[in-house]
């Protein structure tokens, strides 16, 4: 395997969890809901995915469990914010705190155990082409899903009736309600989708990225995914580009270290976080870019007038 090929492959693996989590949150935010619990849903997806795969021996069952864990967590959030109309910021934070605690408790029995790695989908002939084969056709199902989901989301958001409804609910929930759409139900759906994607992102971490359980193994990726959504200005295709940029930064530290450059390892490890801050500054400073697509109702609870 050539050096370039190895670099590209690691960039893909580093970008995939960010992309998966961020595309789910993008849909949630498009419907006008800010779920700060991405980190918590992700880490629960990781631990449930690992535990299920380890116990059953099937990585695919693990993926399903990760997805389910994300959805269950997101439904807790949905019940509080949509039905009980609690503050979305505070509830999202509590979801993250709960997820980190619960995953530590569940995962304790699985620490240090050998994981089950998600197998690469082998496509006859195509996967065997040198260079292009491994890069384009040598991945597990979640990598393909991480690319297909944003394209699907872009299609649904901009080309279908459902997409219009979601955008309307996020843009002006009172008007959407007056038109006869069930705002709460649409938001429940979008929150569940966000949870499912975060769960998959977590499962990718513990089944493909590093096939084992390490406490707090999401290490802030959920928060970076949230920043990515802002960075993408709520556009799925821009989100894909952003996720790969961030994934590249995430992996860059490792390569610079391997080259033996005399930079403290901790400085390199802090790069993704610093770059996220810089990205937020750049994009937030540009008012025209952000204002156009920002869902106007984001973070506001909806109480139907009666």
């Amino acid at each position: 395997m050539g050096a370039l090929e190895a670099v590209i492959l690691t960039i893909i693996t580093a970008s995939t969890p960010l992309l998966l989590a961020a595309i789910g949150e993008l849909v949630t935010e498009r419907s006008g809901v800010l779920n700060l619990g991405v980190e918590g849903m992700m880490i629960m997806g990781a631990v449930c995915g690992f535990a299920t795969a380890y116990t059953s021996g099937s990585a695919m069952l693990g993926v399903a469990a990760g997805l389910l864990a994300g959805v269950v967590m997101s439904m807790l959030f949905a019940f509080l914010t949509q039905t009980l109309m609690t503050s979305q910021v505070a509830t999202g934070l509590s979801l993250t705190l709960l997820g980190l605690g619960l995953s530590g408790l569940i995962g304790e029995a699985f620490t240090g155990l050998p994981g089950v790695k998600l197998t690469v989908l082998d496509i006859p002939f195509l996967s065997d082409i040198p260079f292009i084969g491994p890069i384009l056709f040598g991945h597990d199902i979640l990598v393909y899903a991480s690319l297909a989901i944003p394209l699907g989301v872009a299609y649904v958001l901009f080309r279908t009736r459902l997409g219009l409804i979601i955008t309307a609910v996020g843009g002006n929930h009172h008007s959407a309600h007056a038109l006869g759409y069930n705002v709460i139900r649409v938001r429940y759906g979008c929150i569940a989708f966000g949870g499912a994607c975060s769960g998959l992102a977590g499962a990718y971490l513990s089944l493909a990225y590093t096939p084992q359980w390490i406490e707090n193994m999401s290490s802030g990726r959920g928060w970076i995914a949230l920043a990515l959504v802002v960075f993408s200005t709520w556009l799925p295709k821009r989100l894909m580009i952003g996720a790969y940029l961030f994934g590249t930064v995430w992996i860059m530290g490792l390569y610079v270290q391997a080259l033996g450059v005399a930079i403290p390892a901790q400085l390199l490890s802090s790069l993704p976080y610093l770059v996220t801050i810089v990205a937020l500054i750049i994009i937030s400073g540009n008012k025209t870019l952000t204002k156009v697509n920002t869902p106007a109702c984001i973070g506001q609870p909806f109480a139907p007038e009666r």
Partner: protein
Amino acid sequence: MMIVLEKRSEQSKAMTFLSPVLAIGLTVVIGGFIFTGLGLDPFKALYIYFIEPMTSIWSVEELIVKAAPLILIGAGLAVCYTANVWNIGAEGQLTIGALFGAAIPVYFTAWQSPLVLVLMLVLGAVGGALFGAIPALLKNRFGANEILTSLMLVYVAQLLLDWLVRGPWRDPQGFNFPQSVPFEGWQLLPLLGEGRVHIGAILAVVAVIILWIMMGRSLRGFEIRVIGRSPRAGAFAGFGQKRVVWFCFMLSGALAGLAGICEVAGPSGQLQPTISPGYGFTAIIVAFLGRLNPIGVLFAGILLAISYLGGEAAQVELGISDKTAQVFQGMLLFFILACDTLIHYRIKFAPGAGAAKEA
């Protein structure tokens, strides 16, 4: 059956106080079920968890040691959240405060004078405030979301600490352990009595009283509350939202930094790669459980400190993971938020789905 919320004509005063009690009750009940699920006697486990920490002098002292930083940080965060300023990076401000303060014993190892202690505490607060000022600057100048920037900075601060204790600040006589020189004499906080309780506990109480007076009796407190409720109304009154963002971040940062230096100059007595067991994050729960009121934070801090101690006791006596503490804390915040709905709404059960649709 469908749950339907009916808005109260005015906030329920009773529920403001009952909601945390209800939330604690729910957490204990669910906790009992979790213990049963783990194959333990739930009553014995809950006793060890919540009551035993308060039954001996030793554990009460330990309780105060753990409650002090939670109260210091939580009181600052309560002010922030009242203003709708979301500082969730207190853990990072705590770390930087500890580093600023610890610079004195690290660079002037032999210096002994009461001034050293004062300087360390002041530097701790200054460090925390400066680090808290970063998200405030980014929000005010560029409109960058303070939740994300303050949280990202936690990771940066922890990596900086890690680099210092493994690199330039490592104790040359420390057998290569990642730790700074041990602090001595005036570089340590004076103890209250024989045990481990240090003057950080007094600082926490003083901070609570000052913030309580500020929030209830001063123009600044009024400004913070108005901006938090309605920035537009605040603007008409001539209150600047940006100024409130600066103030809240630097105040809560300073208190978190103070908690940080108290941690390293108190219980630890030196810098280590980990300073706090997540006090900066737990303090978020403290702020909410304390009704965003400094006096409430005092009680909430003690309660959350019990959960830390209970976690340790449960680990020793029941052989279960100390992670249960974190689960309890997370559940508690969840239940508080859910119960707070009762302050503004009455819950009604509608008989069928049809009635709910109408609503």
